[in-house]
């Protein structure tokens, strides 16, 4: 009975995908150039064992019911297949992504874009708690997107910056006037520092101090560094 219901929902999802993509330009999907059209989830998993298919279908069904974007899940399936991952592994990865999307939606509400939700879900998957996500999002104006902020946080945690430090540092920077350009610069500077042997946490703290002391331009970029001027 459950399998039958899931199959029907999967078919509905399959049919609804093109409509969803058309209605949501921010949906994380694109068809540039002459590439073949994206395959539906049902087509992607057609050759899988029945239990894996059922689990994927249930996850997609759950996402659709919760108002979560389906496409990130579909693309994760495609990614797993492209990387020759076993169906069971792909199911686990898709489940984790579903959990991240759900947690991000719970923390940030429905007023954010799908792109921001996907970036927030990635942060959740890297260890950021929903409360931290909410606090960080609250440090920037509501009308601004937090996409870059979440992407940078995820990258920093990957480079070894503890989640607590990353969230606190980014929050302070955002409150001091930092914008997307400054966050992008922070990511590069910390990566450069870490590559040169500086501990990630120390690099984060040092860059935060430097940026805040230098100040931010109205655009949110770090105030320009000195110029080698002539007398």
């Amino acid at each position, binding site marked *: 009975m459950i399998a039958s219901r899931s199959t029907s929902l999967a078919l509905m999802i399959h049919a609804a995908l093109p409509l969803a993509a058309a209605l949501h330009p921010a949906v*994380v999907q694109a068809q540039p150039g002459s*590439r073949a059209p994206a395959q539906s989830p049902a087509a992607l998993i057609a050759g899988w064992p029945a239990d894996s298919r059922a689990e994927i279908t249930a996850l997609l069904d759950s996402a659709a019911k919760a108002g979560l974007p389906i496409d990130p899940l579909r693309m994760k399936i495609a990614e797993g297949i492209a990387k020759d991952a076993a169906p069971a592994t792909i199911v686990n990865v898709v489940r984790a992504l579903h959990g991240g999307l759900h947690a991000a939606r719970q923390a940030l509400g429905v007023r954010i874009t*799908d792109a921001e939700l996907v970036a927030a879900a990635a942060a959740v998957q890297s260890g950021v708690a929903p409360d931290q996500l909410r606090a960080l999002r609250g440090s920037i104006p509501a009308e601004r997107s937090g996409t870059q902020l979440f992407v940078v946080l995820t990258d920093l945690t990957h480079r070894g910056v503890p989640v607590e430090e990353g969230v606190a540092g980014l929050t302070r920077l955002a409150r001091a006037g930092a914008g997307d350009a400054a966050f992008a610069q922070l990511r590069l500077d910390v990566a450069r520092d870490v590559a040169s042997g500086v501990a990630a946490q120390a690099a984060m703290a040092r860059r935060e101090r430097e940026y805040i002391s230098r100040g931010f331009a109205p655009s949110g970029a770090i105030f320009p560094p000195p110029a*080698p001027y002539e*007398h």
Partner: protein
Amino acid sequence: MRPLRALGAVAAGVAVAASWSSLLTAQPDERRIRDSSLTLSVTMRGWPTAAGPIQGPTVGLHLRTEWLWLRMHIDASAANIDRAGKGYATPYLLDGQLALSTQPMRLGKAGADISIGLARDAFDPRAAWIQQSGSLRTWYGVASHGVWARADAHAPLDAHATPTSAELQLGGWIARGTTEVSASVRHIQTGRLKAVGPDSTTTDLSACRLDYDRSRVLQQYRTLCPQRLRTLDVGVGAAWSVHTTRIRLFAAHRVLGQAAFGAPRESWAGGNIEFGWSDEMRFTLEADRRPTDIVRGLPAHRRFAVGLRLSAGLLQRRYAVDEARTDSLPARRVGVLRLGVAANAEVRGDFTDWQPVPLKSDGAGVWILPSGIRHGVYMLSVRLDGGVWHAPPGLPTMADGFGGMVGVLLVD
């Protein structure tokens, strides 16, 4: 004597136009932005003289792409001096300069730029002269400190007006928080003037002096000197950045000068304040005193200016998505990745449904991303020459869940 001083000040305006314009438009953040931009600056300049103020606008236009920097400026100054005549009245002054350079200065990277320029000054078209110049600048700088060196050579087509000259400058800067200090040393060496006009007020060339040449329609001071001249200057500067305002002060001293041009040792100073409500629109106020110019034979003088600088990214064609400020690729822009030199490169990611798609080369290891990517966040990986798939260097990364890493691309 008053007309002479006044005209000297006008000529000084010609001499300083190039540096004046670059002061307004070669802003520090030029080193950080990799995309192309177009900058327009408009400056009102003025010189108080004994005969009254001389003033006029300077319009500068900078077109900068990733590898080429084109600078143009045109000065137009009007003077209302010596109404009584005597042939010294100067109704207008035009000066233009065109310079090309490569590799604008960038933080965190050593490099060099070479510029060649042509300057044309004209009170009157018949008296126009052209000066050729070449400059080589090399530097290394990070956010906290840096050093630079510059060598310049000038060769006027009319060697009667100004001698050939060479200039070497060495400098460095240190920045701590919102304060920065700098220091530099400059050495100038001139060649000999080839000849002196027959109507010059001075025929005695036994010593170097500034003279006023009545024979030229471009009536100006000039250097009369059968010898090579040299000066050595040292300078220090400081600057403060407070939110959107930037204040800069400097002072310099000529430790080796020419006694014939007044004091062999002289000091000068100046400052400017730049402020604005956005990066695209900035205002500048400047005032300073300039030293004797031994190349053009100009006396020391004071200057002041108020300027407006407008910048736009209207001419952007390529977006390096792996550098700061361009982490997010604006929709409808062409994004490029610096993956390195290879016979072929491929990308696969959310926007290709994870199917490999060949990338088109843009030369020198730069590869063009597929066009038409819509707004969103995309995971992607790349490979060169059929090798291992990996996250594009420079992009944000995250775990893919399958034991590897992927790059993250934002499209605004």
